[in-house]
């Protein structure tokens, strides 16, 4: 029994030591940031920090913090499905009384009760949510993401050509909007969408979905895919079938951009995650200083093709440092 206590003690001591090390790290960080005497603390709660898209948002927010002289804390759950953990994180950030908070809700509805009516500048990024006291939503418009992608392809297509659309999970409003934007743009240009299927934002699933589409429609000329991961999967199926079909993805992540350089994907539509993070901190600071901010801020889109892919890749790499 004595052993048990000793072990617990050792366990705790180790974890505490470990933590003090981490905590020490945070403190020095704050120290270097607080050159500015007016201490402003901004909290940013993202959907997760574990995927490239959110790493770029984090980088943008932190860079803005450095440049503008405010302390920026960026947190997020281990995966985009941890809805409750995100709510807990929002509460835990709020209990530290930050001067402003930006949230990218995993689900629009779930963050409302945690944030509603709180007395500090608040805004949403990437995904909007309606709660009392929200000042602004910063993000790109998913409908125009799909539309821009379709228009990029339309330039290379002729009237009457056939195309396919692969989207994410059914019921994800962001991706539904992208599909809608693409569908309507294709239709307006007189191009026929012969297949539109979900692939659950999963690379392997996108590959089999594409294989299935090619079973019946070997004559399609182009595919729009709702995320880069899925686009890479779809491309693999196309190459395996020995066909030459243009694929445009969405997100602008590193793997996709490299694929564009190597002549794989035709292009990708990049939301500007870095800008989202940067604009969030910049606008929160404005609001904290009593300035009025726009209720809807468009963070814009980048169209990446073989023309600018090299340059874009360098930009992505600079963010990873």
């Amino acid at each position, binding site marked *: *029994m*004595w*052993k*048990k*206590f000793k*072990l*617990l003690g050792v*366990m*705790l001591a*180790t*974890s*505490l030591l*470990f*933590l*003090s090390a*981490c*905590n020490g790290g*945070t403190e020095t960080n704050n120290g270097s940031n607080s050159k500015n005497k007016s201490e402003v603390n901004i909290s940013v709660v993202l959907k*997760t*920090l*574990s995927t490239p898209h959110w790493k770029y948002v984090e980088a943008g927010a932190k860079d803005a913090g450095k440049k503008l002289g405010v302390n920026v*804390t960026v*947190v*997020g*759950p*281990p995966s985009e*499905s*941890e*809805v*409750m*953990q995100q*709510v*807990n*994180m929002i*509460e*835990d*950030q709020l*209990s*530290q*009384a930050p001067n402003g908070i930006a949230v990218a809700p995993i*689900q*629009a*509805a*779930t*963050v*409302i*009760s*945690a944030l509603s009516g709180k007395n500090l500048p608040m805004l949403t990024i990437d995904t909007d949510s309606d709660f009392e006291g929200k000042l602004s939503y910063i993000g790109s418009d998913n409908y125009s993401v799909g539309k821009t992608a379709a228009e990029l392809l339309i330039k290379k297509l002729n009237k009457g050509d056939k195309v396919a659309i692969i989207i994410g*999970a*059914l*019921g*994800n409003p962001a991706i539904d909007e992208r599909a809608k934007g693409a569908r309507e743009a294709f239709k307006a240009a007189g191009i026929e969408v012969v297949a539109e299927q979900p692939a659950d934002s999963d690379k392997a699933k996108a590959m089999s979905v594409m294989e299935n589409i090619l079973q019946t429609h070997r004559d399609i000329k182009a595919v729009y895919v709702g995320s880069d991961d899925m686009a890479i999967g779809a491309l693999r199926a196309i190459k395996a079938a020995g066909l030459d079909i243009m694929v445009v993805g969405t997100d602008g992540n590193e793997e996709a951009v490299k694929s564009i350089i190597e002549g794989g994907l035709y292009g990708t539509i990049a939301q500007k995650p870095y800008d989202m993070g940067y604009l969030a901190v910049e606008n929160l600071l404005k609001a904290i200083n009593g300035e009025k901010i726009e209720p809807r801020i468009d963070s814009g889109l980048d169209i990446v093709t073989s023309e600018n892919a090299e340059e874009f890749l360098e930009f992505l790499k600079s963010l990873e440092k």
Partner: protein
Amino acid sequence: MSQVLEQKTVEKATVFKKSQSGLRKYLSKFGTLLALFLLFVFFSLTSEKFFTVDNLMNIVNQASINALLSLGMLLAILTAGIDLSVGSMLALSSMLMAVVTVNLGMHPILGLITSLGVGTIFGLVNGLLLTKLHLPHPFITTLGTQFIGRGLALIVTGAAPIAGLPLLIQFFGTAEIGPIPFSFLLVLVVYLFMHTFLSNTKTGRHIYAVGGNKEAARLSGINVDRVLITVYTISGLMAGLGGIIMAGRVNSAFPLAGLQYETDAIAAVIIGGASFFGGVGTVWGTAIGVMIIAVLRNGLNLLNVSADLQMAVIGAVIIGAVYVDVLRQRKRKKNKN
């Protein structure tokens, strides 16, 4: 029953042997409580916002869902079993509650009954599958139903969340009495009830007996199947209640709710001193286990430790706690010989 008595005498003998070193006995008995206390001291020293009424209420509020799931898990683990389906049951019950109240516009009380009922029936099915189909271990049964439950929760609305629940349901997740969250008071009542159930009723004692030695329990006339079915049904009921609190807190039900919550529940029960070998564990130990996890998560959040690192820390704590269990088990065997 004789097995239980024997075990009790063995435990008494151990206590007697140890009584010459009162301090050690005290420390080992309250080891987890001490760990919780040390965590409190550590986080209070490192974060000025930790030991405030607001934050402490935050912690008990955040702990309430895991507290309920852990109680069901405790019962399963007491019988040397496990219930991997708690998170799925929570998701399915809260989704169906939302369908009944929001989509079908029925009375909120019907919604509450739906959530509790769906959880209970799901748990009952777990118990029946385990005992009537003679599946080899609840790990397999509940792993299967975990997927079934999650799948059904996704199918209900085609993966879409349902927002805008009636006020009565929101009340369960957000109401406060003074500074104290209602959910916390509810959990306290459930814990008191469960403590009484386990220590003062025949079924409660049978649960320990089945976990201590299933064959011996059967030979001494205990209806093992009925005990197991009761255990898994209660676990389902707890998940249904957890579903109400979760949906109430965020004012929406979503099919991925409670994803991997079984891990936190298992961790809380094991950290709280229950044994994977069955027959050992208490409601209050589990309460301390739940609080240790909640305090760890909240404290690490306040220190802005990244979520990835938090997972690693909690994983290490779980392994440590299970290792303590193994040592304890070895000691018990030694004492028997």
